[in-house]
């Protein structure tokens, strides 16, 4: 530690701290316009000048490293004069029309002008820049107000990694611009708005904010983003029941001030006129019930519209659903009722949902989209470690020496995590990428292995082979912490880099390089945070490219093997890190919205645990037979083993594989209830629709990908009669319970608030035991948290694995289910794009997101396009053994020859018409969304 004096205060700081940071940490304020704690210092604004005893001239404190014994003064007559004169120069190049300016009240320049008593410039020459209008619905760029602090360009480069903007020109002629000073839409901008966030003036403002009132009139409402699993904290600025704009905030523990485009700009769906506002009963059922006279029937290929439903009261709707569910239980048994819970919903919603199915209906037929997502991660890590989630936290990523990313398009799917990765790379970490597509991370990768689709397993096995051959294994870790090493070692003997090269198309020496980089945690430059350790720290990150495979579990095991053999586990900035997808998919799984486990992954087949849970609920026992998975439930409905279904917040009519089969199955149901915020494709087949409150309208907790349980808060009032999901489930619980005459001793359905539910969760879930509602402040708690005085766990499996020793598994290289042939020569890769989310119910109703990416398209390489006579932006038809889809071609070098990419966001071009559902991963039952074969033809 270094001791210095600032304004008479004696402070102790870590070496390398700047005087500005030291001062700010001790509540000594120094004026500054170009400094941002997360960005490299610039030194351009010259406002943060301080006096240092013994130095002739004032120095900028943002670039002044603290030295032992240094004496600093931040206020003096001289400094005041210099700062005032400096501000005078800024103002000579600024309109200073604060009276009408939307930034007023949140503007740093205004603040300092006020503090230093400047009303206008004293300079002769009123300088000005041309007004530049960028025609985009996300943010405006008005160069008149720009003070060239460079924060926007730095954040775009250093954090976002998009490098869409740069200081262009030089001297007084310099300005912030895109390449060729074109509009943002033509640049590499991803509309994350990070630049808007850090801009100290009105040069960059959200469009939604313009002329919406003075800054001080707006409310602050904090909540957690409802899109992806990163779980970013957002500060919504509101006026009445309206969101004016959204921003990050420094105290947001996961993301700080940074957000992605969806979190910052994609919230306007919430007040879209399409929102469901009243419970609805489909006309045929309404007629049956005597609610309407009209005799109506859903045609065999018809999808219902809102006009085909009749609004009813909540009472009527709840009674109706309860009647139907109870009737099915009574007629065909509890297992003829199935359900889908929701990773969009809170822990409390999911907890009561699975409780309804298990305790009240009496079936384990509850699953959710985790099945289509990280089911193979869960099964693989359970086999290797005894349980699994991200082992390490998001914040550790920036300090890693080597990042090994595979099957994760982090930039588009987990943007704020990609910001961490970009930061690591910019400070010298290696980024090893294994991915068949040229995803945005490829631009930052130090080594990119472009494997042919489905062949990456060879690379992983060969990396293990090389690590053992070259002696890069961590023998100490292997002996202390693992078992069955020999079996594994023997299993990789065959997998030489040469073999892997042959199969994957990646040069053998790059595989060797990759093995070394990962095993030893090599850096590309800069100084490691872990420099005093024998090997650098490497972390593995993966998502759907690994899991959505017919051998997903083995894929995960092969990565777990790599981590164990190199000891890249149980330390900061290392680990195996599956990036969870939905905002609460981790929580929905933790809550037991899965057919084989109770809350906290207690197996339903584990009698003592099951009985213990039953006892807590005041029951004798719970169903012991694992229920149906998402992928099994459709087949069961198809052959009528399942008669009634209750779907909360899932849209299988677009998200499940082989959609024609899904539709047939759902149509065969006697009863389908869908709890939704919009009339989704699934709701279009429902008998009853229950209108739910969205994430912007409810209370509760969610668990993000790093296992952090965080509070969410309502920002707006729900439209119409929409109700929180937990409330609906609780009401149904009461009613079903009564109808089945199954009332338990204490009554299972007496919840009046999510906080109550949260505390019940804590009491029945070992890993959540310490996560009681009142402990959850702004930063939340990370599970496992076994007791109320436990601080939460940042690094999983820290000293021992959940199962004791980590277990190596010998795995082979299983090929994809479908191989290209003459009829279907191309591999279809499905997935996501940054601007849209899943089945698009929300993102495609967001005006800015829709503007940026308005319609469906398929990416195809120029070589394949030419062969098929396809031109850029021309219509094509894609055919697979299941069906066909029409869309527009986008010729691009992001996919290699032989591969096309189609996102599954587009209802008008549903990717899942094409995917197959007959062969799934044997352990996890996950379908192979990432690989099926197709043929593409031009449409004339």
């Amino acid at each position, binding site marked *: 530690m270094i001791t210095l004096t600032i304004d008479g205060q004696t402070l102790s700081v870590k070496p390398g701290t700047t005087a500005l940071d030291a001062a700010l940490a001790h509540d000594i304020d120094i004026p500054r316009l170009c400094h941002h704690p997360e960005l490299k210092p610039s030194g*351009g604004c*010259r406002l943060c*000048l301080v006096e240092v005893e013994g130095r002739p001239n004032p120095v900028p404190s943002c670039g002044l490293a603290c030295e032992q014994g240094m004496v600093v003064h931040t206020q003096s007559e001289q400094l005041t004069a210099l700062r005032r*004169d400096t501000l005078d*120069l*800024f103002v000579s190049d600024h309109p200073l029309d604060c009276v009408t300016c939307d930034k007023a009240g949140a503007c740093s320049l205004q603040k300092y002008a006020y503090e230093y008593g400047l009303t206008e410039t*004293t300079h*002769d020459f009123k300088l000005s820049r041309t007004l530049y209008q960028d025609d985009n619905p996300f943010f405006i760029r008005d160069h008149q107000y720009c003070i060239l602090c460079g924060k926007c360009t730095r954040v775009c480069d250093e954090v976002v990694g998009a490098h869409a903007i740069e200081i262009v020109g030089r001297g007084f002629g310099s300005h912030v611009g895109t390449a060729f000073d074109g509009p943002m839409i033509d640049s590499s901008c991803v509309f994350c708005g990070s630049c808007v966030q850090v801009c100290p003036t009105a040069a960059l403002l959200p469009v939604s904010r313009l002329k919406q009132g003075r800054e001080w009139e707006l409310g602050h409402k904090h909540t957690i983003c409802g899109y992806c699993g990163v779980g970013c904290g957002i500060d919504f600025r509101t006026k009445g029941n309206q969101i004016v704009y959204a921003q990050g905030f420094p105290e947001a523990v996961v993301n700080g001030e940074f957000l992605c485009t969806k979190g910052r700009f994609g919230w306007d769906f919430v007040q879209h006129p399409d929102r469901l506002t009243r419970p609805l009963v489909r006309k045929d059922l309404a007629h049956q019930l005597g609610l309407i006279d009209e005799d109506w029937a859903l045609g065999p290929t018809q999808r219902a519209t809102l006009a085909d439903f009749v609004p009813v009261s909540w009472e009527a709707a709840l009674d109706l659903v309860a009647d139907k569910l109870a009737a099915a239980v009574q007629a065909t048994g509890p297992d003829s009722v199935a359900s889908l819970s929701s990773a969009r919903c809170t822990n409390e919603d999911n907890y009561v949902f699975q409780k309804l199915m298990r305790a009240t209906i009496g079936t384990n037929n509850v699953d959710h989209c985790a099945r289509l997502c990280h089911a193979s991660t869960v099964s693989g890590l359970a086999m290797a470690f005894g349980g699994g989630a991200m082992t390490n936290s998001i914040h550790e990523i920036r300090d890693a020496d080597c990042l090994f990313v595979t099957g994760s398009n982090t930039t588009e799917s987990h943007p704020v995590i990609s910001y961490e990765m970009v930061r690591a790379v910019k400070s010298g970490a290696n980024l090893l990428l294994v991915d068949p597509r040229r995803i945005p991370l490829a631009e930052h990768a130090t080594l990119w292995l472009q494997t042919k689709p489905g062949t990456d397993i060879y690379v992983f096995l060969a990396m293990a082979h090389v690590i053992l051959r070259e002696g890069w294994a961590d023998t100490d870790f292997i002996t202390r912490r693992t078992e069955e090493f020999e079996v594994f070692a023997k299993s990789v003997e065959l997998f030489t880099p040469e073999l892997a090269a042959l199969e994957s198309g990646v040069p053998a020496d790059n595989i060797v390089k990759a093995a070394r980089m990962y095993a030893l945690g090599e850096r590309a430059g800069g100084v490691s945070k872990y420099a005093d350790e024998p090997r650098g720290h490497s972390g593995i990150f993966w998502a759907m490219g690994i899991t959505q495979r017919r051998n997903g579990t083995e894929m995960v095991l092969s990565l777990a093997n790599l981590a164990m053999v190199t000891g890249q586990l149980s330390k900061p900035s290392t680990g195996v890190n599956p990036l969870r997808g939905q905002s609460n998919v981790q929580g929905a799984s933790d809550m037991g919205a899965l057919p084989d486990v109770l809350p906290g992954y207690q197996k339903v087949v584990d009698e003592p645990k099951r009985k213990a849970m039953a006892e807590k609920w005041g029951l004798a026992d719970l169903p012991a037979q694992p229920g149906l998975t998402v992928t099994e439930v459709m087949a069961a409905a198809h052959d009528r083993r399942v008669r009634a279904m209750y779907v909360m917040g899932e849209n299988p009519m677009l998200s499940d594989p082989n959609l024609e089969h899904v539709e047939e199955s759902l149509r065969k149901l006697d009863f389908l209830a869908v709890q939704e915020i919009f009339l989704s494709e699934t709701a279009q087949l429902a008998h009853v629709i229950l209108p739910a409150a969205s994430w912007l309208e409810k209370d509760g907790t969610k668990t993000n990908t790093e296992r952090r349980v965080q509070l969410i808060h309502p920002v707006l009032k729900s439209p119409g009669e929409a109700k929180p999901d937990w409330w609906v489930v609780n009401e149904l619980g009461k009613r079903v319970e009564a109808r089945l005459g199954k009332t338990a001793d204490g009554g299972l359905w007496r919840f009046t608030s999510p906080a109550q539910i949260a505390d019940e969760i804590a009491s029945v879930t070992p890993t959540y035991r310490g996560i009681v509602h009142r402990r959850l402040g702004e930063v939340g708690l990370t599970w496992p948290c076994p007791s109320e005085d436990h601080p939460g766990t940042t690094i999983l499996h820290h000293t021992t694995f959940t199962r004791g020793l980590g277990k190596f598994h010998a795995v082979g290289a299983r090929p994809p289910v479908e191989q290209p042939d003459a009829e279907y020569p191309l591999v279809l890769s499905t997935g996501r794009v940054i601007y849209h989310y899943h089945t698009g119910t929300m993102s495609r109703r967001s005006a800015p997101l829709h503007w940026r990416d308005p319609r469906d398209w398929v990416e195809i390489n120029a070589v394949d396009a030419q062969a098929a006579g396809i031109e850029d932006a021309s219509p094509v038809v894609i055919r697979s053994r299941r069906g066909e889809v029409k869309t527009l071609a986008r010729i691009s070098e992001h996919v290699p020859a032989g591969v096309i990419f189609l996102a599954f966001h587009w209802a008008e071009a549903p990717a899942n018409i094409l995917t197959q559902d007959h062969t799934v991963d044997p352990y996890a039952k996950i379908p192979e969304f990432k690989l099926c074969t197709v043929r593409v033809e031009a449409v004339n």
Partner: protein
Amino acid sequence: MQPADLQTITANEEKSRAKHRCRLWACGSTACLSSGAGEVRTALTAAVKEHKLAGEVQIATSGCQGLCGNGPLVRREVEGEASITYQDVDPTLARQIVAAEARSGPDLAAASELAAGSLAAHILPETHPFFALQHKVALALNGRIDPERIEDYIAHGGYAALAKVLTTMTPEQACDEVKRSGLRGRGGAGFPTGIKWRAVHDQAGERKYVIANGDEGDPGAYMDRTVMEDLAHQVIEGMLIAAYAVGAQQGYLYVRGEYPLAVKRLEKAIRAANRQGLLGKNIFGTDFSFTLDIRIGAGAFVCGEETALMASVEGNRGVPRMRPPYPAQSGLWGCPTLINNVETFANIVPLFDKGAEQFASVGTEKSKGTKIFALAGKLKNTGLIEVPMGITLREIVFAIGGGIPNDKAFKAAQTGGPSGGCIPAEHLDTPMDYESLRALGAIMGSGGLIVLDETSSMPDVARFFMEFCADESCGKCVPCRVGTVQMHGLLDKIVGKQATNADVEKLQRLGELVKRTSLCGLGQSAPNPVLSTLRYFRHEYDALVSERQA
């Protein structure tokens, strides 16, 4: 190559040199080329052929011979005789020069007599005051060797200093030798070179770099151009010694983009040094290896500033950054980096050849050795000079420069270009050293020295420099980006006789602000020409104010 190979090359060179009785060195530097040296050389060669003198008279191309204002120059060199320099040579005169050699036949005495006689009008004796007061250390070989032939450089003792350092000195001793010499950086600020070397040497780290700063952005200065064009090998040798001393394996020569000839010559020299094994792996059979690359600037004055230069070498916008960390701690790609001016490197070779003591025997107490100046402006003799530190301005202007032409009076000398200041007549006896110049509000700078006569308007000169600085500002920090524009506006107003006294006061105050608060040397020194003219020539400003039109 081994050290002994240097002698073999030298012996071969001497043998072939002895084949000719007389050598005529046609100046091939940029300045002389622009006044017709190309045609002169063609005429010389043709004449030699005509007179069938190929066996006796050799035509060679030299680097800058100094008195560019009187070019094209041709120097006659005959073993055992004082050399003669012909000035203002044109093709006709060139043929006459050769003809004189032909007529004399083998009679050497007659030849020189003849030459002295009929060509007398064009002879510039080496005793000419322009040459007499100079002291050539860095430029000792300039104009005397063929800049494009490594053998010629070796034959004149080239690469011997490197051999000596590599085989007899430790890196620490090498740093120490430089420190003892008192050499200070010639790039402008005069930082002690030995201390800088030692700082880089002392840094931990496997990768280190050496950079030669050949950006020379001062408009009106061309010392570094000459050094790079004519003494490429001397710069390379200096860099090699430095690299050995600090422990660097890679070097960059950053050359101003407007100097194509320098780039060409340096490239050629690097190729030759590589071929001879003087660059590359295991130089002189030692463990020392060094590779050297050229980076070409693209027209940005600020890229002469060391941190901006490094940004530019990395392929970025040439924007300076805050220091510390200094390049010695964290330079190119975050590695310790030594950066010196090319003239500084050119001084290294004579320093090690002759030893630190001899180097330090020239100059003043605190400013050792010599300095190269580019003399320009209102002077009779303009060109490149190398003089001992401490020489007075008066000697430079009146003795070497020959005084002011057209019977005009001396008004001021501007040193240090846009970062420098003006020295008025009352300080003509100031010794030229770092401290004395700074005390006057001027600076040594890189060596541009422009003389202004009574017809020059000082506010106009100040405006000229301010326009330059505003145009060259990188735009990063507000005092320089906006301040220079405001100052230029005020100067415009003053020169245009629109200004009031308050404007002059504002100019002064703004100048102090920009000087004190700018991020890098450009902004910190941009007000110097204004502040120094305000200091010595305030009356000129006042006159313009009082002439203000209604």
